[in-house]
């Protein structure tokens, strides 16, 4: 495309109406460029249901996440007792069971309404992005079909060691990195499995940041997105200004994090297989079969570890719930630390040692549980 090419959207104002409806779901683990992907699609004219979660310091360009989607996913996960980055292979069933018929039909109606809103914005394509989306892919695919839209899935791929990050730390002897890695394997394999019946594209995080034009052109082609196909030069310029090349900075490998060898091998193999899917022609039975085997292997690995660590599960089960605490299991470790720090030192010092010790034991127990 060249700057001097005529802008065709001006010559045929109603052309967009002829395009089929698409509901684009941006999946993949957090910190894998999902915000960048949905942001690009938004710049290219796809509709993001409003209002969005407001931008903050941690993500100044905004999340591109509809507030309702985030609230809905959180409520469903809470009902299911599932954590946003849950490593349990059984968590998928729990999440699915939380989606009752009445929730489904409410969502169906909501999606229909969003397409009406999209048309006001002169597009038939909607993009939905939330890191918790993977847990509810069937629900969204069904809602898309109900609205006569084609469900499309873009899955972002980033090496697991980069996603897990370099926060190699122990909480009460437990390896926090292991759980993050396990959660990555769990999410990626399930996402792949759940999207086989949809139009889908796998996009490499590094590929996207190196040269988004190649990556997006291919996404547009595979998913049949008019927003990409008909992008104007202004759109493209805006995307160039939106994509943040400083995201490329992290350079780490497995040696920077603490993960058992068997799990690391499984994560590596998963990464390798998913990467072959970046090439759309590779998305066929042979790879699917290998991914099925990996999913089975992961379930086995998790099950074995669970048998060993059953003592910790039993001990956790017997801890007394904190009165009034309804969201304890989703409390971040940082927040627990802050609870202790909220009490000024002068006051803490006056609390009898025994009580303080017990409170601290309670907090450290929670901290061990949180991740």
């Amino acid at each position: 495309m060249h700057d001097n090419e005529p802008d065709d959207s001006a010559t045929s104002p109603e052309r967009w109406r002829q395009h089929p409806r698409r509901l684009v779901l941006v999946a993949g683990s957090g910190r894998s460029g999902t915000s960048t992907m949905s942001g690009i699609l938004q710049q290219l004219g796809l509709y993001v249901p409003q209002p969005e979660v407001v931008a903050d310091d941690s993500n100044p360009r905004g999340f591109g996440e509809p507030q309702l989607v985030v609230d809905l996913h959180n409520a469903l996960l809470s009902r299911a007792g599932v954590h946003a980055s849950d490593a349990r292979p059984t968590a998928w069933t729990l999440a699915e069971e939380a989606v009752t018929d009445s929730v489904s039909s409410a969502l169906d109606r909501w999606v229909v309404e969003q397409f009406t809103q999209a048309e006001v914005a002169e597009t038939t394509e909607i993009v939905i992005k939330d890191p918790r989306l993977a847990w509810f892919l069937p629900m969204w695919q069904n809602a898309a079909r109900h609205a006569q839209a084609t469900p499309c899935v873009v899955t972002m791929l980033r090496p697991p060691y980069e996603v897990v990050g370099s926060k190699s730390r122990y909480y009460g002897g437990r390896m926090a990195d292991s759980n993050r890695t396990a959660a990555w394997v769990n999410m990626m394999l399930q996402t792949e499995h759940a999207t086989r019946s949809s139009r889908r594209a796998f996009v490499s995080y590094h590929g996207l940041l190196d040269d988004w034009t190649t990556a997006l052109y291919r996404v547009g082609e595979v998913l049949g997105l008019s927003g990409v196909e008909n992008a104007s030069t202004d759109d493209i310029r805006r995307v160039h200004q939106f994509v943040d090349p400083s995201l490329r900075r992290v350079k780490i490998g497995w040696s920077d994090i603490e993960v058992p060898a068997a799990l690391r091998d499984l994560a590596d193999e998963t990464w390798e297989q998913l990467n072959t899917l970046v090439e759309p022609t590779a998305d066929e039975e042979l790879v699917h079969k290998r991914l099925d085997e990996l999913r089975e292997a992961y379930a086995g690995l998790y099950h074995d570890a669970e048998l060993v660590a059953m003592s910790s599960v039993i001990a956790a089960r017997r801890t007394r719930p904190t009165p009034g605490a309804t969201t304890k299991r989703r409390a971040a470790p940082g927040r627990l630390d802050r609870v202790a720090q909220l009490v000024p030192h002068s006051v803490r010092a006056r609390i009898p040692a025994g009580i303080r010790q017990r409170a601290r034991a309670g907090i450290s127990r929670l901290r061990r549980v949180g991740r």
Partner: protein
Amino acid sequence: MTSPDTSPVMHNLEGHGDFDVAWPWLNQTLAPGLTTVLRVKNEARSMPRVLPGMLRATDRVVVVDNQSEDGTADVARQVAAELGLSDRLVVKDYPFDVSRCGLEHLWTPDRSVHSLAYFYNWSFSHVSTTYSMKWDGDMVLTPEGIAVLRDLGWQLDGDVLVTIPRHPLFVESESVAYLDRGTANIEPYVFPMASGYGHVKAFEWELRLHPEDITRLRLPEGLCVELKYLDSDEFAHWTAPDSFADSIRTGRKRREWEVFHALAEGRWREVGDIERIEAPAGVNVIDYVTERWLPQSHRPVFVGGLEFPVTPGELPIDPDRRGPDGRLLETPEIRQGVRRTTETEDVDDIDGAATPARVRRVAEAATEATKELPDASNRRVLMVAGSGRSGTSLLAGIVAQLGLHVPQPEISSDSSNPLGFSEPAWVVEFNDRLLRRELVEVSDARPQAWFITTRLSVQPRARLLLFEWFKLQFEQADELVIKDPRLSWFLGMWRAAALRHGAQPSFATMLRHPTEVVSSKSQQYPGPAGNTNRTAAWINLMLFTERATRGSRRTFIEYDDLLDDWASVIRPMGDALGLHSIATARTADLRRVEEFVRPSLRGSHGGWDGLGVSAPVRDLAEEAWTQLRKLAKGEDTASQATALDQLRRDYMRFYAEAEGIVASSIDAATPSGPPNDAFLVEFERSLT
């Protein structure tokens, strides 16, 4: 003030490159364990009393000699050599004048070789273990103190600092000393060796940094005395008495000054809370206080400390109820069987209601103190350790037939163990309540559970109950056998209680192949834990029991050997552990044992097939079994200890890995309130 260890090497202002401080954790992998750092100056006199305890209690002792003129360093080397523990001693020479506490310290820059803070940082930089302990050249450990510190060397886990109360003992002569019960000196002594724990300068002296939210482990009283010789200048390291005249930080020092001078002038009765102790003829008073008087004296030692009265029913035998023949009577609760804790009863009440001590008048305390202490030389406590379903009941039963006393009443036999358990009901109740308080299972696979039970073990209330209970048992018999499958979790506390009574503790650990233990457990105690977890719990229990009994009189017995030929196992055990009853057993006793053992059946060793234990756990269990069996075959050696330590660390790592992967399951199992469905209800309604 920021931590001094932010740069890899700390240089001194004077430019003495040989005395720069290089932080050890940056240059080497620290070995697990505890090192004592003793800074001494002219302490030759105290070395023979202080050093042996430290060498026994910790993995290494760094003696930093600061310009002694009385040969302190040589005496230290000589003491270690005589004990055969020279490999644990490191002597370093610090050739600079160090500013005295108080004003002189205040005016010395912290990076000067003359600064106390710099001196401490340099001294601790010679520690090569994961934990370090500051100690003074005049502090002497009791046997209980040695045992407790010995255990901490392997029990400490993570960011923990340990505070130890010490009691000032003013020594007048070889046979007379004065214990100050009016002073509670409780200082943190043990710290992790890591960045963020450097020494910095305070106003009067140095202090050691630590994170705000660190776990504190407070050790009980009665573990150590601090010697003050009335014939020496105990305040030489202070600039002048007015250095500590008015600050709240120096109140303790003022009390010391007051007591010291009152004693020197013979008017100590006016000061109050001072106890005069006179050793029996021919016994040195320091030995007498640390080995007998202090271990057996009333708790709290500090008159302002918390009293934990023992209420009737807590002990199986009420000391105030005696029959016409003078024998103790059992309390009604115990005659009815064990007093089980009900569901509604808070298990926390093992803490009891701590009431502020009535300040005991010195005269009253002195009456108790001068009471004749019983002869304890024949006292023995045999503790039967090891996993349940390994023949621990059988072993306890055999030694009971041979005359060791099983504290009464016992748990009655049931179908799972027709021979009876030889388990004292009170012991089971006591250990069970402690375990339940922190949610540790009898069979628990978590390596971190050992530190949890350590924290429980230092509770003064629990230790007091145990001490009182032992007192009653020794009125019944000299040789006791204690058996309970929960015992392994609290071996340190039980050993310490026996030591306080002057008894010699010993341990017999039963070994049985894990497949037999696990299949027997899965039949007798079905529950949520599967066989993989049961096997992991067996590894955890056995490897840590081995560690906990290391260094004590102990023996390991294979279950099959005991069944094959019990006599050839029990006799050598009795000799090795110095058990009088076994050495003097008569034919009639032996015949009774024969009848007792006969009905026991050999377990079937069905192997791993069919148990469904995952391969890595099975391999670790087999390896543990192979290594532990060597102990039963007489290979209880240093190299075997190294192999078992390695295996224990492998297991800890293995468990941490598994726990890491399944953190989501642990998270999900933690009870939380009901989910908040308000949003979903609103969402469904808003779109109809």
